[in-house]
């Protein structure tokens, strides 16, 4: 039996798209049935959003809080596991999951692994793949003796499930004492600067530009080629470009982007979180081993300054 | 512990500390007997061997010992170490594995005899490495070019050893990018220069125009090119003399910028560019040594901050302008003035009271700054400001004594590597928590011991 339970994630009343990726992953992992759980006071409102192809059942777990609360979510997942005995439980490898999934693992009752991007079933046993040593090595992990395995799954690995289905919907109760409470969401400060989430063509710079003085050259280049300038986190952290220009997990997802030119960016997982989905990624980096090349469509192993000098001559 | 300049006590100290980084620094200076005790410390752990095999700062005496070890992982790291000497590369080559040979073939210091011995036939990886190695001699290049791929030709053409004959062959067989590189090559034969001059592709003409072995006549033709990129490359060419310059009327800002970037413009040409609408042009004009007082006066009131800064950095800028720039509303302009070693004392005094960190850092480097101000800067709250005094030729000993204890490792690293560093500081830094600081201090002390012996 390989019943899979997918824990959907939502925020501010909206389903987070990664939830649909998990449904697709569950199907691909060969689930005999896929149950999607919606946890939260008003989560039942999202039933329609998760009724996509491949979903057999939806279980809502109404909790006291409308927003994510780790104690309530942990209790909810435990109740779901008790009620459905899934062999695999999938959660997104997201900030909210970091806040409660490890607590499930730490009960000792389930197999547990985080940031998983490969899932296989070998003779009834789950074997997952994750990275180690700053992505230089991959590891296969198994869970001897565990009948239920809980994993957090890396976003952007599977294409989101689409289509529609009419799954059975039921509800389950779970009670918990919340040890923390939501006060408010704080939106990132709106700046007068451009909105990179709307840009179709991005030119992003990373630590490869080496010095603040060099920002100017690349902002001229972006201007010349007609791109919006973005950056990796170290550049924004140093105050060389406004925070609103940062692409990545703690920055922006460049949702509208069709063409992404990454100059001197190594391609960390967190940076990829904001741009990996872009169809045409082009990377320039002196290091042929840089992970940005593994997601790029075109690559240049070379010096960004040399390339920039030449490139600008083609845009007058 | 003697805080003196005596190599024997220095080595004794290193051995008693058992610190591999200090031992590494002293090894080349030690006699044979002491070397043995240092080597025990340096080679104590496999991890250190691997680290030192890869590190560009490792002395040749230690690299030589590592080359003799029979360990593939060590050899791999050695073959990538940019500091490995030609002799050691030759030694490493004997019996090397394919992966090591590949690195040797691409290594910038591999001697010609070794490159010639590499059996590259039928091996694309080695072939590519040899094509791009700037040490590869012309006879070998000529063998490599036979049946070479387009990518390989591009490696060969960038090689400074290529001669007329080879360049001609590359020109005939290559695409416009190869031809562009041929045109830019110092050894480009006259016939090809002629052809490049008439070439239909801008790239080739542009590359030719950047060739610093061109004749003035040829450059003058290129300066009339219809394409601004070509004119720009020509006007930036150092071969051109002043009486051929003067592009103030060129419609392309690229051309005017390039001209303004030249640092040898005559007063007359500078005068022509001073009113340019492009602030990049004015920025460069403001840096011209030949700029007259009236030009500098005008640009010192430019609306663009970087232009005013450039005036303040101009060596010919007179005091009365500097006085005003020292009070500029923009701190980056004031910092530029404070950086001038020739700054009149009365102007510097005003800047000593500035509270902008860029200005204070510049004051910290200025040899004219008073001692008590330097001492105060050495204790500034901002860690990046404090280290500015290290490079000041008049830094008081007391400031250096303070900085040897600086919590910011970078400041101690800079101190250990600077000639101003006191011998007393160096002894202190031998016990620094940062390995790189201890290494640098050890090496500096050994050099000083040798000089006094």
């Amino acid at each position, binding site marked *: 039996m390989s019943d899979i339970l997918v824990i959907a994630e939502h925020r501010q009343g909206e389903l987070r798209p990664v939830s649909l990726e998990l449904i697709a992953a569950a199907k691909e992992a060969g689930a005999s049935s896929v149950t999607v759980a919606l946890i939260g006071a008003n989560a039942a409102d999202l039933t329609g959003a998760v009724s996509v192809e491949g979903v057999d059942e939806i279980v809502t777990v109404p909790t006291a809080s409308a927003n994510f609360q780790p104690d309530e979510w942990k209790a909810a997942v435990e109740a779901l596991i008790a009620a459905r005995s899934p062999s695999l439980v999938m959660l997104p490898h997201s900030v909210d999951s970091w806040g409660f999934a490890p607590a499930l693992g730490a009960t000792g009752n389930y197999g547990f692994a985080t940031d998983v991007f490969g899932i296989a079933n070998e003779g009834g046993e789950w074997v997952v793949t994750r990275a180690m040593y700053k992505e230089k090595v991959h590891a296969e992990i198994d869970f001897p003796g565990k009948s239920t395995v809980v994993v957090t799954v890396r976003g952007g690995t599977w294409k989101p499930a689409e289509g529609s289905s009419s799954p059975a919907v039921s509800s389950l109760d779970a009670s918990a004492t919340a040890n923390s409470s939501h006060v408010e969401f704080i939106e*990132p400060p709106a700046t007068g600067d451009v909105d990179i989430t709307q840009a179709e063509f991005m030119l992003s710079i990373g630590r490869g530009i080496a010095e603040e003085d060099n920002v100017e050259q690349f902002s001229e280049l972006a201007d010349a080629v007609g791109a919006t300038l973005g950056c990796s986190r170290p550049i924004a952290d140093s105050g060389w470009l406004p925070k609103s220009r940062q692409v990545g997990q703690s920055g922006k997802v460049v949702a509208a982007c069709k063409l992404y030119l990454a100059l001197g960016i190594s391609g960390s997982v967190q940076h990829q979180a904001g741009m990996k989905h872009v169809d045409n990624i082009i990377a320039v980096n002196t290091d042929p081993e840089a992970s940005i090349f593994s997601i790029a469509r075109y690559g240049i192993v070379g010096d960004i300054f040399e390339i920039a000098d030449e490139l600008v001559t083609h845009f007058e | 512990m003697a805080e003196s300049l005596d190599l024997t006590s220095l080595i004794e100290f290193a051995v008693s500390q058992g610190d591999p980084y200090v031992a590494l620094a002293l090894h080349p200076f030690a006699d044979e007997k002491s070397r043995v005790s240092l080597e025990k410390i340096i080679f104590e752990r496999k991890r250190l061997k691997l680290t030192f095999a890869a590190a560009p700062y490792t002395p040749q005496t230690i690299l030589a010992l590592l080359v003799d070890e029979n360990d593939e992982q060590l050899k791999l790291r050695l073959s990538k170490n940019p500091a490995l000497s030609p002799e050691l590369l030759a030694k490493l080559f004997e019996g090397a594995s394919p992966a090591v040979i590949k690195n040797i073939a691409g290594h910038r210091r591999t001697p010609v005899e070794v490159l010639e011995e590499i059996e590259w036939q039928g091996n694309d990886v080695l072939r590519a490495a040899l094509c791009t190695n700037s040490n590869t001699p012309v006879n070998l290049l000529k063998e490599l070019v036979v049946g070479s791929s387009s990518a390989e030709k591009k490696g060969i053409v960038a090689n400074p050893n290529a001669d007329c004959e080879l360049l001609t062959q590359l020109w005939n067989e290559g695409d416009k990018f190869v031809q562009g590189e041929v045109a830019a090559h110092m050894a480009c034969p006259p016939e090809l220069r002629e052809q490049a001059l008439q070439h239909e592709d801008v790239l080739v003409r542009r590359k030719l125009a950047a060739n610093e072995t061109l004749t003035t006549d040829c450059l003058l033709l290129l300066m009339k090119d219809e394409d601004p990129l070509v004119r720009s490359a020509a006007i930036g060419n150092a071969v051109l003399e002043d009486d051929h310059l003067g592009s103030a009327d060129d419609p392309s800002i690229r051309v005017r910028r390039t001209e303004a970037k030249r640092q040898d413009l005559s007063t007359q040409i500078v005068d022509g560019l001073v009113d340019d609408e492009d602030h990049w042009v004015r920025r460069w004009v403001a840096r011209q040594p030949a700029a007259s007082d009236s030009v500098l006066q005008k640009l010192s009131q430019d609306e663009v901050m970087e232009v005013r800064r450039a005036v303040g950095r101009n060596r010919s800028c007179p005091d009365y302008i500097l006085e005003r720039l020292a009070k500029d509303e923009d701190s980056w302009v004031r910092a530029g003035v404070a950086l001038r070693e020739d700054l009149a004392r009365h102007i510097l005094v005003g800047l000593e009271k500035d509270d902008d960190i860029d200005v204070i850092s510049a004051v910290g480097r200025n040899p004219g700054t008073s001692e008590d101000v330097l001492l105060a800067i050495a204790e500034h709250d901002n860690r990046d400001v404090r280290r500015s005094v290290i490079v000041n030729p008049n830094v008081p000993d007391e400031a250096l004594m303070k900085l040897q204890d600086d919590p910011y490792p970078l400041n101690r690293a800079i101190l250990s590597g600077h000639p101003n560093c006191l011998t007393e500081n160096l002894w202190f830094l031998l016990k620094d928590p940062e390995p790189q600081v201890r290494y640098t201090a050890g090496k500096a002390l050994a050099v000083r011991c040798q000089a006094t012996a």
Partner: protein
Amino acid sequence: MKILVAIKQVANLDDDFEIRDDGKDVDHDFCDYEINEWDDYSLETALQIRENNGDEGEIVVVTVGPDDAEDELRKCLGKGADRAIRVWDDAIEGSDQVAIARILTKVVEKEAPDMVFMGVQAADNAYAQTGVAVAQQLGWPHAAVVNALEYTPGASTATANRELEGGLEEKITVNCPAVMTIQLGINEPRYASLRGIKQAAGKPLDEISHSDLGLSDDEVGEAGSVSRVRKVFVPEKGQAELIEGTPAEQAARLAEILKELSGA
């Protein structure tokens, strides 16, 4: 007031390395070690709380790791922590994060601090797991990915901001004592003064084993884990189409591609 900060020594793997004979890990000869970047921030958080508390209170740093990890503890002592604890013995080898959390939990129970800080994740393997796992085993309140914190020692609640995706933050209140995982950028970590480092040599550093903490052999190592590394391998690299040629040529091709794809 007492704050406990758990730290980890992380590995930096060389570009050229070998996998161990049993295939389950890399050969550690090919690693350099340093303190996990996040831990600088969590220690700084503790130090600042103490400074704002009139310099009153004790800060204890703890790590689970072999001999070499002592270096990192000493650095923390050099920055101002008062005491260090290192837990290690052969049986701990092969522990996953749940087993490591079990060990840390015992240390926390023994020390009974008012607050526990840990990094969001470790730079090498990025499990993002240990802090919340410890909280679970303690039965303590917790908050993950904290990038701003208001906490007065002795108070029954703290206010924290969690850094969510997309620049959004969530302000929450958490009951105390609690375990918090601290995010980069929450403060500006200090460097240890040399005087501090010298003093650190005289500060207490306890070395203990799992049994000193009352844990049995099957509560640590592989037996105490809920996951097991079956094998490690070097991943295949994705394949970008490489643009070759002279820089001028590469740039020319790039310009074509950009013009085509941006519809310019």
